[in-house]
């Protein structure tokens, strides 16, 4: 993804040209992360006045056909390549998360779909949904570009669900640099997912990312990968705690990408049983 982004954006995060044509003729496969990144990239370029077009849009190519089913060409191109193109049963296609309807979409589309795929009650997803909701809020608070989307894909043969959520904006390391010092962007991400660590200006008080990592990786339900500017952080699943690896990357991601993997076998069925808070 860094190579793709590097071809259309400078190091200072400005478009490299007035016109960009994406050649899709060799797009054999694209996953949920690639779809989110691509959608964001097209949005970002167009918001900067770049003319964006696509070539090689042959629906015989698997990756192109996938994008068509995700309604990508209806949103960003000249319309569906195949007039019968429709979201697959294994896909919850990308949706802007900077619109007022994003929370409704999360509640009324994503949650029931995931519950059905995982064969669990919706209440089993409350912890995860709370974290995703907070990511929406963070992006709304911090995103300078107003470009952001989320895409979900079920890989039944691999028994996992991939959730990709990204904005193009300042990026976590730059936000964190207002308050903290760190040697590199990877270290910034490692710091950001600690409880009660927060950049100034948000109302989160520094818990949102810690909760995401704790609820997914810490409980062994899946993995969380975060990519922002020149940093990346991997939080792998474990029964207790999880392992975290932070580092720098040979490129730049102009914002933040959250890639969440849920291991479908590990999601416990939880009913919506009402209770009182016991202090």
């Amino acid at each position: 993804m860094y190579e793709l982004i590097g071809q259309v954006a400078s190091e200072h995060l400005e478009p490299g040209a007035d016109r960009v044509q994406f050649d899709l003729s060799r797009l054999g496969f694209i996953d949920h992360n690639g779809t989110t990144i691509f959608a964001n990239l097209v949005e970002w370029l167009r918001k900067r006045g770049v003319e964006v077009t696509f070539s090689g849009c042959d629906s015989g190519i698997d990756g192109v056909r996938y994008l068509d089913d995700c309604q990508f060409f209806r949103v960003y191109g000249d319309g569906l390549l195949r007039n019968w193109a429709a979201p697959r049963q294994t896909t919850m296609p990308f949706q802007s998360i900077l619109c007022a309807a994003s929370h409704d979409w999360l509640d009324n589309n994503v949650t029931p779909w995931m519950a059905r795929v995982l064969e669990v009650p919706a209440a089993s997803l409350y912890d995860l949904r709370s974290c995703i909701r907070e990511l929406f809020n963070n992006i709304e608070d911090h995103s300078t570009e107003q470009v952001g989307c989320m895409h979900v894909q079920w890989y039944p043969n691999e028994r996992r669900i991939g959730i990709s959520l990204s904005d193009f904006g300042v990026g976590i390391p730059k936000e964190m640099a207002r308050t903290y010092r760190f040697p590199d962007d990877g270290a910034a991400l490692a710091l950001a997912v600690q409880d009660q660590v927060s950049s100034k200006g948000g109302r989160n008080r520094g818990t949102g990312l810690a909760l995401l990592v704790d609820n997914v990786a810490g409980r062994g339900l899946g993995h969380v990968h975060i990519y922002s500017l020149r940093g990346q952080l991997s939080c792998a699943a474990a029964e207790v705690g999880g392992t975290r690896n932070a580092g720098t990357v040979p490129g730049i991601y102009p914002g933040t990408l959250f890639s969440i993997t849920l291991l479908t076998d590990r999601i416990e069925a939880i009913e919506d049983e009402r209770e009182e808070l016991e202090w």
Partner: protein
Amino acid sequence: MVIRVLDHVPHCRSWSDGDVIGQQIKRVLKGHRRAVVSFDGVGDVPSSFVNAAFVSLLDDYSFDFIKRHVAVVDSTSQINSLIKRRLTSEAKRHLLSA
């Protein structure tokens, strides 16, 4: 005094939603009454909502006082564990910085 959150906000999704509830709780506490917060109809809340609705109470009241005078009912394990986690964590920070 029961505060059913969805009687005051259309949803519990953000800091702003939580702030409305926080103000309701403070209004009840100032009247020397016990606040009973009902999450009837709500499945999950984000941490920013909890920060505004509950953590903000620590600005005016001790954690012990909050535990004695604020009850949460018709709630889910996600909401309750998040409220406890956030308040416990922030109360500890308040103590350390005092």
